C-alpha cells in the first residue's frame, strides 16, 4: 500500500490534542504546587494529592462515557454517594465478607447505570431530565441507608488501597491505572465503544450504517454507573464512613462535567477520551491545593476554580481566532 508513516503521526497527534493539553495543564499546575509546598515533591505529598484526585477522576471517567454518546449524566455524583453509603454497611468483616461487599457495591453501581441507560434509550427521555430524576432517587436511597453519617469499612483494605506501593507509588493511582486498563481500554476499542462514539457524533449516520447504537449507549451508561461506584468505594476507603451529603454529590456531578471539558471531551459527543478526563480531574483538584500552598483564604476557592476553569476551557477555543471561514465557527 502506501507509506503513510509520517502522516500517521500527525493524525495521532491531532486525535490526542485534547488529552495532551489536559496533561500539560495538570503537569504545570502540579509542578507549581509541589515546588511551593513546604514539604516539596515527596511521596507523602503525592499520595495525598492522588487520593483526593482519584475520587473525581473516577466520577469524571463515568461522565466521559455518557458524554461521548452526546448525553449527560447528572446522577453520577448521587451514584457516588449511594455506593458510599452502601459500602459503609457492606464492605466490612472477614476478607470473604469484604469481597462480597465490594462486589455488591459495584453491582449496585452497574444497576444504577443500567437504569439510567434503559430510561434514556428505551424510554426515550432526554438524558438531562432522566438523570436528574434518577439522581434524586439514588440520593434518596442513600439517605435512607445513612440518615446520619456513620458506618465503617474494612480498614485493612482501605489502608492498603489508599497507601503506597513499594513505599513511593500511591496505591490509588495504581488502582486508577488498572481500572483504565480493564474498563476504558477494552471499551474504547470494542464494537460497543465505537458504537457509543458513532452515536454521539451522528446518530442517524450510525443507524444507517447498522451500528448497534442502543447497545453501545446502554453499555456507556451502565459502565458509567460502575465507575461512579468505584469512586464511591474509594470515598469510603478514605473517610471510613458513609455520608449522604447532598451538596457533595451535586458538586461531584458538576466538577465531573468541568473535568471532562478540561480533558478535551466534546460535550457535543463523539470526541474525547477518559484519559483526558482523568487529567482534567487531577488538574481541577490541584487548583484547590494551589490556593492552600499560597495561603489563600479557603473562601476564595470556588471563585478561583471557576476562573481557572474558564481560562483552561478558553485555551481550547483559541483555534477559533484562526478560523478564516466564519461558517467554521458553528461546526
Amino acid at each position, binding site marked *: *500500500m*502506501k507509506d*503513510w508513516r509520517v*502522516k*500517521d503521526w500527525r*493524525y*495521532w497527534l*491531532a*486525535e490526542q490534542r485534547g488529552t495532551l493539553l489536559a496533561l500539560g495543564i495538570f503537569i504545570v499546575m502540579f509542578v507549581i504546587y509541589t515546588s511551593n509546598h513546604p514539604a516539596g515533591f515527596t511521596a507523602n505529598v503525592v499520595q495525598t494529592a492522588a487520593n483526593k484526585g482519584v475520587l473525581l477522576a473516577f466520577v469524571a471517567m463515568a461522565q466521559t462515557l455518557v458524554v461521548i454518546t452526546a448525553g449527560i449524566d447528572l446522577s453520577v455524583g448521587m451514584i457516588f454517594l449511594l455506593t458510599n453509603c452502601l459500602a459503609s454497611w457492606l464492605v466490612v468483616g472477614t476478607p470473604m465478607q469484604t469481597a462480597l461487599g465490594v462486589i455488591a457495591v459495584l453491582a449496585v453501581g452497574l444497576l444504577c447505570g443500567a437504569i439510567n441507560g434503559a430510561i434514556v434509550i428505551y424510554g426515550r427521555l432526554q438524558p438531562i431530565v432522566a438523570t436528574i430524576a434518577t439522581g434524586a432517587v439514588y440520593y434518596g436511597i442513600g439517605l435512607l441507608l445513612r440518615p446520619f453519617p456513620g458506618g465503617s469499612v474494612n480498614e485493612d483494605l482501605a489502608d492498603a488501597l489508599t497507601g503506597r506501593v513499594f513505599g513511593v507509588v500511591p496505591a490509588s493511582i495504581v488502582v486508577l491505572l488498572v481500572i483504565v486498563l480493564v474498563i476504558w481500554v*477494552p471499551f474504547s*476499542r*470494542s*464494537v460497543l465503544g*465505537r458504537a457509543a*462514539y*458513532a452515536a*454521539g*457524533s*451522528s446518530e*442517524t*449516520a*450510525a*443507524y*444507517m*450504517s*447498522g*451500528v*448497534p447504537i442502543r447497545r453501545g449507549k446502554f453499555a456507556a451508561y451502565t459502565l458509567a454507573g460502575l465507575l461512579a461506584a468505584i469512586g464511591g468505594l474509594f470515598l469510603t476507603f478514605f473517610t471510613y464512613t458513609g455520608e449522604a451529603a447532598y451538596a457533595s454529590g451535586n458538586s461531584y456531578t458538576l466538577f465531573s462535567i468541568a473535568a471532562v471539558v478540561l480533558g478535551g471531551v*466534546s460535550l457535543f*459527543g*463523539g*470526541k474525547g477520551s477518559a484519559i483526558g478526563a482523568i487529567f482534567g480531574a487531577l488538574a481541577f483538584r490541584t487548583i484547590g491545593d494551589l490556593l492552600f500552598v499560597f495561603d489563600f483564604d479557603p473562601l476564595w476557592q470556588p471563585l478561583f476554580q471557576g476562573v481557572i476553569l474558564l481560562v483552561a476551557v478558553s485555551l481550547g477555543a483559541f483555534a477559533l481566532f484562526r*478560523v*478564516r*471561514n*466564519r*461558517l467554521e465557527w458553528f*461546526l
Partner: protein
Amino acid sequence: MDGVAPLFRMEGISKRYGGVRALEKAELVVEAGSIHAILGENGAGKSTLIKVMAGVVAPDEGRMTLDGREVTFASPGAANKAGIVCIFQELSLVPELSVADNIVISDPPKRFGMIDRKAQRRIAEEALARAGAADIHPLALVKDLPLSRRQMVEIAKALARKPRILILDEATSALTAADVSKIFAVLKRLRSEGLALLYISHRMNEIAELADQCTVFRNGRNVASYKAGSKSDNEVVELMIGREYSHIFPPKRAAVPATAAPRLEARKLSWADRLHDISLTVRAGEVVGLGGLDGQGQRELLLAFFGVLRGLSGQILIDGKPVSITSPSVARDDGIGMALIPEDRKTEGLMLPMTVRENLSFAALDRLSNAGIIDRAAEQRLIDDMVGLLAIKTAGLDIPVGALSGGNQQKVVIAKWLMRQPRIILLNDPTRGIDVGTKQELYQLMRKLADAGAAILFYSTDYDELIGCCDRVLVLYDGAIKRELVGAEITERALISSALNIHGEESPVGLGASV
C-alpha cells in the same frame, strides 16, 4: 427471467406516510450482473423504494424475495447481512470518526473481542483502493474531508461490506468529474463480477453510459421498464413527468450591453490558498454562471461576497462603490441587498424543525417588525405572495419545513431571500438533488428575477444548466478564473475543456465522454 428466479424481486409493495402514498403496489426485478437505473421525479417513490430494500422502512404490504426466498428486513443491519448495501444520498458517515473507522463500521474486524486496528487499517486501505480513492488517508477524520472525498469514502465503505446488491442513490452528485469516471470504471468492474447494481440519478448522461436496464417511477408506481438505449432522453423524461418535456430552459434575452455599469464587481479577490486574483463583474439583468470542476473555489467566491470569509484581500464594489462586507447581515442590508442561496439547504438554508412560516420570515424579520415586534399581518401578506410566486407545495404554513420534499424545501430557501427583494442573488448549486419539474420552475424564476433587474451569480455543477441559463459563464480552475464564455460560446465542449484547464478548442479524446 422465466424459469430462473431473479436475484431480487419486489411485488405489490405499498407504503403510506400519514395520508401520503409514497409507494402503491410497486414492482421491481433485479438481476445479478447488471446495472439497473431507477428514474423518476423526486416524490415519485424512488427513495421509499430503496429505503424498503435497505431495511430502513418496513412496507405496509407486499413481499420481497431474495434468491426466490421471501425476506423481510428489520433494520439496515439486517439488509446488509443479506447482501443489500445502500449508499444513501444523505451521507451515512460518522463525522468524528476516522475514514478507516467508518469503512468497517458495520462489522469491524475483531481480535480477543476488541477491534483489530491493524486488520481494520488493511480493510480500509483495500476498500479505498478498490473505490479508486487510495489518496485518502485512512486516519483522517471524516469531518475534515470535503464533500466529494466523503462520497468516495462512502463508496469504499459500501464495497468493504461485500455487497451482492449495491444501491447508489445520487451517489455521484458531489463528485468531481475525475472521481465520476473512476467510480464508473469501478461500477462496471463490479457488474462483471456478478453484482447487481441499482443506480439512481438525475443525470441522464450517467444513466446512458452505465445502465443495462431502466425502470421509471411515477406517483409511487413503476410505469415503465425498458432496455437502456431503447428510448430517447425526451421519451424518458416524458415518462417521468407525464407531460410534454420542452422548453425546460426559458429563452435568453438580448445581452445586457457591456457598457452598462456593473451592479457587483470584484477586483483581485484573494483568500488563503483558495482564491487567486479574481476579478469579475455582474450587471443588473444578467445571469452569470460559475463553471468548472467541483471545489475549484466557486463556493469560497460566493462566501467571500457574502461576508463569511475573513482575511480577504482585494476589493468588492457595489454599483461602482467599494464596500466592506463583514458579515452576512451586512451583505443583506439595504445598501447592498445581497442574498445567498446556500449549497446545503439542510444546515445553511433552513431550520428544519421550525415551521415553514418561521423559516420564510427569518431573513426579512427586520423589515416586518416595528420596535422588535413582528407585524403578523404584513408577514402573512408577504408569505402568501411568496408561496404563490414559487408555487410551494405545503400542507400548511405551520408544519415543520423538514416535512416538505427536497424541491419544496429549496423553494422555501429561495422564497426566504426573495422576501427582501435582493438586488444581487448568489446561488450555490441550487438544483442539486431536486426534481426536473422544480428545476424548470427555478430556471424560469431566475430569468424572471434577472429581467426584473437583479444581478445573478449562479454556480452549478450541471453543465446543461450553465448552458441553458447563463448569459456568461466564468470557468474557475484552482481558485482563479481561467476563461470567460459569452453567449453562444457556452457549449459543453468549451465548458469541459476549460474546466480541465486545457487550452485550445479541440476537446481531448476520451475526456468528453467520461464527464
